């Protein structure tokens, strides 16, 4: 006998997001044009990529560097810039202790250097700007979320967007000048006077879920695995449906 049991697909690819397989397969030359210091440990690297097919906020790319002996290192990085920045892509990279790729970016790279990229990749974490977005990020996990916030601003979108971002201290908060009324900053080690120090908590998340927009929130969580586990549990405990939480984990 045959049996055609179909598994539940509550965790499904959003049908409204198309991913270009062709763009994902082709390596392109990206030329570094600008380096902007964000924090003592993070900088933004701006590239010209003439044939970039465009991306949705939340997508990432693969980047590769090649040594003279043919050795290749490749890494996935979230895209920080918004899609309307045509022909350009920005990445914000932490200087990872002993990191061979981030180390090259932070100590060797200068405008005019060329690297190779392919993408954009993966539509799962992407946000096309059509649904209310509740964004939780920590450290450099805020990078793909900033792409969403920038698109929200650049296009003057009216769909609700809220961001809760966690950093060790104000000095380590990436994109600090760009946050507005939509953002709550949480500091885990030291905070400005009058701001409590501590981990992201139910008190940050529950009020946002209490102000349910029409159609409910689409939640995006990005950061270290420890943060992702913690933040996604806060969301579930506050009532956010599991199948409307998308997670991007950095290691």
């Amino acid at each position, binding site marked *: 006998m045959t049996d*055609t049991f179909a598994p539940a697909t509550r965790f499904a690819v959003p049908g409204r997001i198309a991913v270009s397989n062709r763009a*994902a397969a082709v390596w392109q030359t990206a030329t570094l044009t600008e380096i902007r210091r964000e924090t003592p440990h993070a900088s933004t690297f701006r590239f010209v990529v003439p044939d970039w097919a465009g991306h949705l906020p939340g997508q990432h790319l693969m980047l*590769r*560097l090649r040594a003279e002996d043919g050795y290749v290192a490749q890494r996935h990085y979230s895209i920080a810039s918004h899609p309307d920045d045509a022909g350009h892509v920005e990445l914000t990279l932490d200087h990872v202790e002993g990191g061979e790729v981030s180390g090259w970016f932070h100590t060797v790279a200068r405008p005019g250097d060329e690297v190779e990229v392919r993408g954009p990749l993966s539509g799962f974490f992407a946000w096309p700007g059509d649904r209310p977005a509740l964004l939780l990020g920590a450290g450099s996990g805020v990078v793909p979320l900033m792409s969403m916030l920038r698109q929200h601003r650049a296009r003057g979108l009216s769909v609700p967007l809220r961001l809760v971002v966690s950093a060790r201290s104000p000095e380590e908060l990436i994109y600090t000048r760009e946050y507005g009324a939509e953002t709550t900053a949480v500091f885990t080690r030291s905070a400005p006077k009058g701001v409590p120090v501590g981990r992201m908590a139910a008190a940050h998340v529950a009020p946002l879920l209490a102000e349910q927009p029409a159609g409910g929130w689409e939640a995006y969580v990005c950061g270290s695995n420890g943060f992702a586990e913690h933040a996604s549990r806060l969301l579930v405990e506050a009532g956010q449906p599991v199948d409307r939480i998308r997670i991007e*984990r950095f290691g």
Partner: protein
Amino acid sequence: MHVTRGFTGRPRVPDAGLPPGQYDAGDDWPVLSAEVTPDLAPADWTFRVDGLVEQPRTWDWTQAHELPSSAYEGDIHCVTSWSKFGVRFGGVSLDAFFDVVRPHVSATHVVAYSHTGYTTNLPLEDVTGGRAWIAWEYDGKPLPAEHGGPARLLVPHLYFWKSAKWIAGLRLLDHDEPGFWEQNGYHGRGNPWEEQRYSGD
């Protein structure tokens, strides 16, 4: 591909066990999953094999543990470019489950699906002949939830997104049916030695 000015990479010795484009993650075991880690107790875990088989069957935790145990010791490779050497998993070979359900000769592919709804597709020949396991132990201990515990699929000769966490079942088909990441632009098969990362590679 051109040389990146000033890039030397970390000191390296050639390692025959490292597929192209991969680096040795050492003691790290990065967690990569796009969904909320489910709170799934062994008592609530089930594993079903159906589709093009003689005898569809669902096993619970106890029944699955009554099958002959089988271990994997070797390497694993993630598409995000880390590899991990000499890992040890304990569980049951998928062959033991197939011996019970008896696949039809027409079955050519499987869709693996998880208790979270995640899916991934594989050719049947990639999960038979001692090449795939249901794994519930890592390094002699229960598999941690964030790595797919209580039980995950293990197909170590392919990129690790094929090794579905929180495995709930396999459906045997007479055709290929792209799963979650495959619909998101990832390669249909995912052989690390041929760098089958994305569709079109």
